[in-house]
């Protein structure tokens, strides 16, 4: 039963990038506006899920040749490493800090170490969602 999903596929090709970009936006936005690693990660995975629905597992695997278990592990390591990073400054585990910097073009921006930790969360969420979906999807 092969249905014609040209419309879905064409739409996906465009929408995918919008969703992905929005997910990155919402991830960086998290410090001040709604968003953050958890939501951003979920949105990125939902973009991949869209790709999965429009095409199939094999295509997605070709386009995104990551082992998502390793993405999960990388995320966990990032989170732990940022937590331990505070040791270098003689602070207890997971101490976070922030400061304001001026960048060319972008102007003054706030940078927080919490963002690094959030990257870990982001990666873990992507990793686990896609690990689970891929494993269940592959199981035929």
């Amino acid at each position, binding site marked *: 039963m092969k249905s014609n999903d040209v419309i879905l596929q064409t739409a996906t090709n465009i929408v995918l990038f919008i969703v992905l970009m929005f997910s990155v936006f*919402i991830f960086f936005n*998290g*410090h*001040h*506006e*709604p*968003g*953050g*690693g*958890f*939501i951003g990660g*979920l*949105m990125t*995975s*939902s973009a991949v*899920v869209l790709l*999965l*629905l429009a095409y199939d597992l094999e295509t997605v695997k070709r386009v995104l040749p990551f082992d998502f*278990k390793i993405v*999960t*592990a990388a*995320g*966990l390591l990032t*989170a*732990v490493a940022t*937590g331990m990073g505070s*040791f270098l400054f*003689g602070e*207890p*585990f*997971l101490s*976070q800090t*922030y*400061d304001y910097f001026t960048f060319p073009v972008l102007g003054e921006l*706030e940078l*927080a170490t*919490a*963002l690094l*930790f*959030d990257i*870990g*969360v982001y990666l*873990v*969420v992507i*990793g*686990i*969602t896609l*690990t*689970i*979906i891929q*494993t*269940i*999807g592959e*199981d*035929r």
Partner: protein
Amino acid sequence: MITALHLAIIAPFLAAVFVPILYKMFPNIHTGWFVLAVPAVLFAYFLQYLPVTSNKETVMAVLDWVPSLDIHFNAYVDGLGLLFALLITGIGILVVLYSIYYLSKKTEALHTFYTFLLMFMGAMLGVVLSDNMMVLYMFWEITSLSSFLLIAYWYEREKSLYGALKSMLITVLGGFSMLVGFVLLYSITGTFSIQETIALSSEVVSHELFLPAMLTILLGAFTKSAQFPFHIWLPDAMEAPTPVSAYLHSATMVKAGIYLIARLSPVFAVSGEWLWLVAGFGITTLFWGSFSAVRQTDLKSILAFSTVSQLGMILSMLGVGAAALHFDNLDENLYVGATTAAIFHLINHATFKGSLFMMAGIVDHETGTRDIRRLGGLMTVMPITFTIAVIGGFSMAGLPPFNGFLSKEMFFTAMVEFTEFQLFNVDTFGILFPVLAWIASVFTFIYSMMLIFKTFTGKMQPEKLDVKPHEAPFGMLLSPIILVSLVLVFGFFPNILSYTIIEPAMASILPSLLQEGEQFYVDIYFWHGWTPELYMTLGVIGTGVLLYLGMKKWIGVYRLFPEGLSFNRLYDQTIIQGERMSEKVIGWHMTGYIKDYLLYIFSFFTAALLFTLFYKGAFVVNTENVAPISVYELILAGVLIVSVGIVMFTKSRLKAIIGLGVAGYTVALFFVIFRAPDLALTQLIIETVSVALFLLCFYHLPQISKNLESVRFQAGNFIISAAVGLTITLIGIAASSSRLFDSISGFFPEASYEEAGGKNMVNVILVDFRGFDTMLEILVLGIAAVGIFAMIKLRMAGREQL
């Protein structure tokens, strides 16, 4: 701040990270050569502290870890800690060197071996150099864990797994009890620092929790140091590769219990219970270990029981040494000698037992067996190994002129003088101590002789050996040769240890005896004159020789002990019965149906919550602060009810999924109305992703059969689901009706901007304020993903029982 001392403690852990990489990159070089650098550098580093501790100074390097829980990674170097640190790194060098020749780089998984070994080394350094009890406990458990991994190194052997599990269960049981003891101590003193606890010792002694704290900590020390009746794990731990047995199970890890007892002596030792328990268990273990060693036929088993007995001997000396605290005057204090002997023997034991283990490993390596019934006559083929065995064995038996003789004499002195002690009823039962000590020494003499002469003299039986025996390569002999040289050096010049190591260590164990500016004077010498100790030694040798020669006549004594009553049997039965019990309990409630599990969860949930709600009188209805219900909310509630109804009553899966999706999106809309954009966003995406997941799972489910009329009405299920709904509603009403505290909703926006620089307080709470929660949550998620992956990909064939 992190200091060089902290780095020294964690250096082995850091080095362990590189071991697998080096193993892969340089397959032609034995990984051990790289690893050798770690203990060597650390040994040199710790040697620098010798002048410091010899001057009766101590070093404390402070590093805050979790200050809010009073957990500080404070490294503390004093005489006792340094003695152990040198022992760990020094023996570490020799063991790694020996292992390079013992473990073949072609057939063995060297990367795992050295990773575990380094892990152990770091953990052991942590145990002896941490001032904080919680940090000490952490390192203590890592030593148990690495010991478990190393015993199970040849994991395809059934016996290795058995031994590993046994050691793990017994030592972790003790470790856990020790943790309880530390917490009890904390509740008395309010600090986890050992030094501060020692300073408060007078308060501790008079506290009602003193005895429970002491007993629980002693249990930890006894299990770790293989004291009777917990010694049963040590002989089974001999399944580990010989370098591991030499390192962990004779020289270092099993002495962690001794370290702990020595370290905490200033806190507990003034009590009579401490003296009786430590000395009593020690002397019993000494006797039982040496008695059991004689019946063994495996070289390593003999050495294992011998280690058990020697550990008991050191402990009994530490226990008797506690008597010293009842006399203030240092000059006339006889009992200080016991502590001196304990430390001296600790060092001696590491030298001679290490060399003997390595000797046993060489014999095993070159002949293919460790069974003394098959060995014999190796003297001519393995002359160097024989020499090592003679020096090590004679030292263990307590013969002059080796170091074992000196400490054995001091031990006898301590035991004889102990009978003159006037407190705690020692004058009645105290006579048992020298008697048991003497008998145990006779057995020690016998098994030492067995070790040497049954292996190396007599007739060689080449037909019983699988390979043709020959002398070991030089590299393998190097480490035991260094150790037996130390046996000789410490035998002839014991006083090179006295000033540098023994005196500072004693200052750590018996600090209260020292006034300002005072110090211990330790002078060890061979000739005491014709004292009772010397007669005892002569008696040991005479009786020992007679018994050794006439062994066939009395060996039947061992058959008097019924097999069924041993502690090993007790352990095995506990394990078997425990497994049977838990299997029964699990089989009874783990039915494999999600329906049943939900039933347990929900009925417990409603029962517990409803009971608390009404028992505490928490249910109130207060409609004062209630906002008016808007039209949107009514519509959404209606949609929610309808969609949930569809889920319940539809006969098509697709409809059920759509219904569920509608319910989820409606909840998201509720979040929007109540102005929780973060929650709304999350809910929306979660719904989307889970619909996709459901669709994937559909593939695996059978069709709902068409002729299924309707779901049968089940009263029990109905009551429970109604109760769940009722509970949630009641709690919701009660929660919004009662205001016990001021709202925190004003605090968070402000705090998150000022302290974390973020305007989105939800995210700030997630990644900063409660960052630790988030970290563990994503860890749980990761585990769940791996679990799902494992269940699907590595599906077990059929319904295998685990």
